[in-house]
């Protein structure tokens, strides 16, 4: 996304905006400032981002949405604290809050960051001449922030890896799965998701993979996981694999993020030890009625015990409270993938699974819930034991950067 020139960021469309609904509202009602032809005078007490205070500037016309704002993850960034609370201790929270304010809070997005301008995180700037867009732009809003992982995966920006089939063939935008209700902090309708016995005692989820999936693949691919289509692997595996285990390809993992304040500029910055494309299958650490999978895809997150060392010693004392290889849902879904090319493209393929030897020694304890103790045996061994016959299917194709594809011929002559 090319950066906008300063004038582009502030240019209002004089043909369309004055006639729009929001264009009927005097500028000063939201932006403050003063009526003057002199820029400095006009910008006195200017409010550049009125929706930083949605209760003041948006509530009157959008009470239903603003009422949800305290649950809006884009606003409250609660996901960060879900993790930080578990890995840090209360006595350090004041220091952690300072760190958070310097490095994490820039991810906060206001109403305007999605509906009027580009997010402040990427420099802001009006998208469409101050017109308010009900549907945010995929590239100028959503992946402007969610770019290095989701955006690059979904749009196919990694060399030799195709874009997600939902984008490549369906041209689906984020909002086609992640509804406005979800974005604003509310499921579309309780009954849409809460169908299980567990819902008799539903409590608010405290983790993105806690409880009911929303969105869920099965909402569109209804027959896939209940074995009512003609695809043999769906019938064999049913719900013991998350969809991504078979249908995603390599995605980004990161190691060792450290944050600090620049001595030269005074600006906060971060540095990661590395990022790389990988594909790892591990045990499901959040097994539930709605996520019954034995195996899920895992992504390494860049937390380390000294990530916040700039702010003090031992600020991540509970690193092991959570895995550093986390349950993930890569956004690069393909119908055909190397690991699903045949049974033994996956079964017996040690490169695909997160085994203990592939975990940093200081992170083994943290990752016990996801480490695969014994990888699934090749089908030839299973058939020899159980006496069933599985017909090998599609031949393996390239796509996984860190996976050695074992062809059916080599594996099961």
């Amino acid at each position, binding site marked *: 996304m090319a950066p906008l020139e*300063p*004038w582009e960021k502030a240019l209002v469309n*004089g043909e369309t905006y004055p006639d729009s609904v929001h264009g009927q509202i005097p500028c000063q009602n939201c932006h403050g400032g003063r009526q003057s*032809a002199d820029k400095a005078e*006009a910008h006195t007490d200017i409010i550049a981002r009125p929706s930083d205070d949605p209760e003041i500037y948006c509530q009157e016309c959008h009470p239903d949405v603003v009422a949800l704002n305290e649950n809006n993850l884009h606003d409250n960034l609660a996901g960060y604290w879900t993790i930080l609370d578990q890995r840090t201790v209360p006595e350090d929270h004041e220091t952690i809050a300072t760190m958070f304010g310097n490095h994490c809070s820039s991810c906060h997005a206001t109403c305007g960051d999605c509906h009027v301008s580009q997010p402040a995180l990427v420099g802001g700037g009006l998208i469409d001449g101050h017109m308010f867009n009900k549907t945010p732009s995929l590239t100028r809003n959503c992946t402007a922030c969610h770019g290095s992982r989701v955006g690059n995966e979904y749009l196919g920006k990694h060399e030799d890896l195709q874009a997600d089939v939902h984008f490549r063939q369906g041209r689906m935008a984020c909002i086609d799965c992640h509804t406005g209700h979800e974005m604003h902090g509310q499921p579309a309708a309780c009954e849409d998701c809460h169908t299980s016995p567990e819902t008799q005692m539903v409590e608010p989820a405290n983790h993105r993979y806690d409880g009911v999936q929303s969105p869920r693949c099965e909402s569109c691919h209804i027959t896939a996981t209940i074995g009512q289509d003609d695809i043999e692997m769906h019938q064999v595996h049913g719900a013991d694999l998350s969809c991504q285990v078979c249908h995603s390809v390599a995605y980004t993992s990161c190691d060792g993020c450290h944050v600090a304040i620049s001595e030269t500029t005074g600006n906060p*910055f971060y540095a990661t030890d590395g*990022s790389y494309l990988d594909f790892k299958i591990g045990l499901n650490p959040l097994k539930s009625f709605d996520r019954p999978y034995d195996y899920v895809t895992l992504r390494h997150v860049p937390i380390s015990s000294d990530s916040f060392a700039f702010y003090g010693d031992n600020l991540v004392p509970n690193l092991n409270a959570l895995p550093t290889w986390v349950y993930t849902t890569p956004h690069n879904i393909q119908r055909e993938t190397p690991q699903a090319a045949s049974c033994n493209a996956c079964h017996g393929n040690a490169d695909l699974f997160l085994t203990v030897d592939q975990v940093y020694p200081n992170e083994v304890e943290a990752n016990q819930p996801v480490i695969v103790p014994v990888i699934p045996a090749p089908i030839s061994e299973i058939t020899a034991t159980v006496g069933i016959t599985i017909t090998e299917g599609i031949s393996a194709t390239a796509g996984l950067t860190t996976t050695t594809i074992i062809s059916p011929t080599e594996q099961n002559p």
Partner: protein
Amino acid sequence: MKKAQRIQNIKTILLSLMLVLATAVLLSSCSSSAETDSAVALQTALEPTAVIPTPTEETAVAPTAVAATLPTDECLLCHINKDELIQTADPVEEVVSENEGEG
């Protein structure tokens, strides 16, 4: 003989009078035609004068009418004007990011 000559003279006088009258009539018609032409010419000459107030009035009205559709808000007057924004933009301070790796 004299009587016949008198009659002839009277006829000549009458004819002369008729000619004079006819000439007068013709002249008068020419004169009125000329006057009409003059009037037309004058009118034509005056038309701009007569028309001028109209455009002047329109000119006077037009800005008022346009002003009704153009924003009177000083904020909008500037922010819909690309050139104005370019001229008044603050100089861009280049910020060198010290971030390393995927964010």
